[in-house]
C-alpha cells in the first residue's frame, strides 16, 4: 500500500518540469497521514467492494470460490431478482425514490420558508419558535413513531404512502441549516430594496431570496433525501402491504426469508448492491459542484 502511494505521488510530482533537484521524499509527502487515510478509505470501501464482487457470483459460486474472485452470474442474479414475486424489487426502488424525492422536496420547501422567516425578520417569539422546533432533534424517532402510528391509525391512514411521507416533512436540522444559509446569503438591504420597489413579502421571498439560497437548499435536499432513503423505522412501523415498502424494508424482509434458505442469499446480495448504487452515484455526480463541507453548515465567504 505505502509503496503504491509513494509511486503514484512521485509520478504526479515528477512530471512537473524543472524539478531536477527534488527535495527528499519525506519532506514532499507526509507519509503517516497519507497512509492512515488510505487505510481508512480501504476500511470504508471494503464492504462495498465485497458486495460488488459477491453480486457477480451464482448461488453455488458464493460458497465455493474465494470471496474476492468475481463470479459469472451477475446478469442471472439481476434477472432472478427482477423476476422475484413479479418484480416487487423494482417496485420497492420506485417507492424509495418517491418517498425520498417527494419527501425531500417538501421538506426543503418547508425548511426554506421557515429558515428564511427566522433569519430575516425580527418578530416576537422568534427565538422561542426556533428553540421549540429544534427540540424536535432530541426526540428519538421511535418515541414519536409509535404514537404517530396510533394517531394515524385513528385517522385511518396507516399503511399508505402518506403515512411514511408526512411525518418526515418537518426537519429541525433542515430548518437550522436553511436559517444559517438565509442569514449568510440574503443581505438585509436586498430585501429592503424589494420592499421599496413595492414587492410583497411573498414575492421577495420567491423571486429574490429563494434563488440566493439555492446552493444551501441543495444541501438540505440532499441531507433529507439520504435521511428518508435510509429510513427504516418509520416504514417498518407504518406499513404492512409490501407493495408500498421502500427498499430498506423490502431488503430486510427478503433477508428475513432468505436467512433460512441460502438460495436467497444471492438475491439479497444483488439487491443490496443495486440499492446502494443510486445514492453513491448521486454523491459522485454532485460532489463536482457541491462541497461536502456544506453538510455541516459551513458557509463559503
Amino acid at each position: 500500500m505505502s509503496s503504491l502511494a509513494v509511486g503514484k505521488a512521485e509520478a504526479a510530482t515528477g512530471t512537473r518540469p524543472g524539478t531536477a533537484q527534488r527535495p527528499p521524499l519525506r519532506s514532499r509527502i507526509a507519509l503517516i497521514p497519507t497512509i492512515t487515510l488510505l487505510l481508512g478509505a480501504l476500511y470504508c470501501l471494503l464492504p462495498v467492494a465485497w458486495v460488488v464482487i459477491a453480486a457477480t457470483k451464482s448461488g453455488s459460486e458464493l460458497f465455493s470460490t474465494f470471496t474476492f474472485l468475481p463470479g459469472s452470474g451477475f446478469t442471472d442474479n439481476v434477472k432472478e431478482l427482477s423476476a422475484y414475486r413479479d418484480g416487487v424489487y423494482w417496485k420497492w426502488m420506485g417507492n424509495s425514490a418517491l418517498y425520498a424525492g417527494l419527501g425531500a422536496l417538501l421538506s426543503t420547501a418547508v425548511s426554506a420558508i421557515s429558515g428564511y422567516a427566522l433569519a430575516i425578520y425580527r418578530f416576537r417569539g422568534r427565538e422561542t419558535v426556533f428553540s421549540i422546533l429544534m427540540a424536535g432533534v432530541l426526540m428519538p424517532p421511535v418515541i414519536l413513531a409509535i404514537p404517530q402510528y396510533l394517531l394515524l391509525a385513528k385517522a385511518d391512514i396507516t399503511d399508505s404512502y402518506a403515512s411514511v411521507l408526512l411525518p418526515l416533512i418537518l426537519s429541525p436540522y433542515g430548518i437550522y441549516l436553511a436559517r444559517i444559509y438565509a442569514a449568510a446569503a440574503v443581505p438585509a438591504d436586498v430585501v429592503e430594496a424589494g420592499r421599496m420597489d413595492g414587492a410583497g413579502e411573498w414575492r421577495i421571498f420567491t423571486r429574490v431570496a429563494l434563488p440566493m439560497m439555492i446552493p444551501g437548499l441543495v444541501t438540505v435536499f440532499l441531507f433529507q433525501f439520504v435521511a428518508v432513503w435510509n429510513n427504516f423505522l418509520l416504514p417498518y412501523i407504518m406499513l404492512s402491504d409490501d407493495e408500498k415498502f421502500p427498499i430498506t424494508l423490502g431488503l430486510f424482509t427478503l433477508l428475513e426469508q432468505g436467512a433460512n434458505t441460502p438460495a436467497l442469499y444471492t438475491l439479497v446480495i444483488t439487491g443490496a448492491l443495486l440499492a446502494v448504487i443510486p445514492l453513491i452515484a448521486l454523491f459522485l455526480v454532485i460532489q463536482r459542484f457541491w462541497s461536502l463541507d456544506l453538510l455541516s453548515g459551513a458557509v463559503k465567504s
Partner: protein
Amino acid sequence: MTSARRTSYGVKGAPYAFLLPAVILFALFFALPIGYALWLSLHKVKVSGLGLGSGARKEVWAGIGNYTDALTDSELLAGALRVVGYGTIVVPVMLGLALVFALMLDADKVRFTPFTRLAIFLPYAIPGVVAALLWGFLYLPDVSPFYFVLDKLGLPQPDLLDGGPLYIALSNIAVWGGTGFNMIVIYTALRSIPAEVYEAAKLDGATPLQIALRIKIPMVAPSLVLTFFFSIIATLQVFSEPTTLKPLTNSVPTTWSPLMKVYQDAFGKGDIYSAAAEATLIAIVTLVLSFGFLRAANSRNKQEAAR
C-alpha cells in the same frame, strides 16, 4: 394568492405566515404524538368479564404504575446495559477516528485527500439496514474473506455473531457508518481556523503533532461537543442494525436494545401503554444526558474563557 398575502399579512404578519407550515407540522407530528404517548403511559386497559363486547375493555388511569413496571423490568434493564456497553465502544472509537482523519486531512503535504475524504464519507450514503446486511455477510464464516484468511493461516475463528464479539460486530457497523460524517463536521471546523493562528507556532518550531494537540483540537472543541452530543443520541436509539442482524443469528434477542423492547411491547405484545411508558423513560434519559452533557461542556468552555 400572491396579492391576497400581500394585503392581509404585510411585513409584520409575514414571518408568522411563513412559519405556519412548520408550526402545523410540528403540532401534528411532534407535539400531538408526544402528548398522546404521555397520556397512554399513564393509562392501562381494564378488562371486565371475559373481555368480550365493546364495553368490556376500558382505558383507566394507571398513575405511575407503568413507569414502576418499566423501571423494574429486567429485559428493559438488560437492554439498557447492552446499549451502554455498545455505546462505550462506538462513541470513543468513532469520534476518535473521525478526529484523527480530520486532522490528517487538514495536515500539510498529505496526498490523495479528495479520494480518501470521499471514500471515508461514502458509508454515510448507505442505509443502516444495508450496512448491517453487508457486514452481516462479512461476519458469516461461509462467505466471509476474513474467515478465509484466518482459515489459511490456521488461526482460531471466533464466532462474531455471538456473546462478547457481537458487541464488537455491532459497534463496527456503527463506526463504519458514522465516522465519515463526523469527520466532515470536524474537518469543516478545522478549515475555518485562520492560518495566522499556526504561523507563530510554526515559526517557533512546533511539530505538526504539537500544533494538532495544542492548537487545532482546542479550537475545534465546539464541533467535538456537537458530534459527541449527536453520537450519544444516535447510540441510545440503535434499532435497525441489531434488527437486521437478527435473522442471521440466534444470539440477538428481540429486546436487544431498549427501543427494540419498546417495539416488541407495542406491536409484539400489543401493550401500547407499557410501550409508551418505556418510550417516555428513554426520551427522559436522552434529554437528561444530552442537556447534562451540554451544560458540562458549556461550563468548561466558560471556565477556560475566564482564565
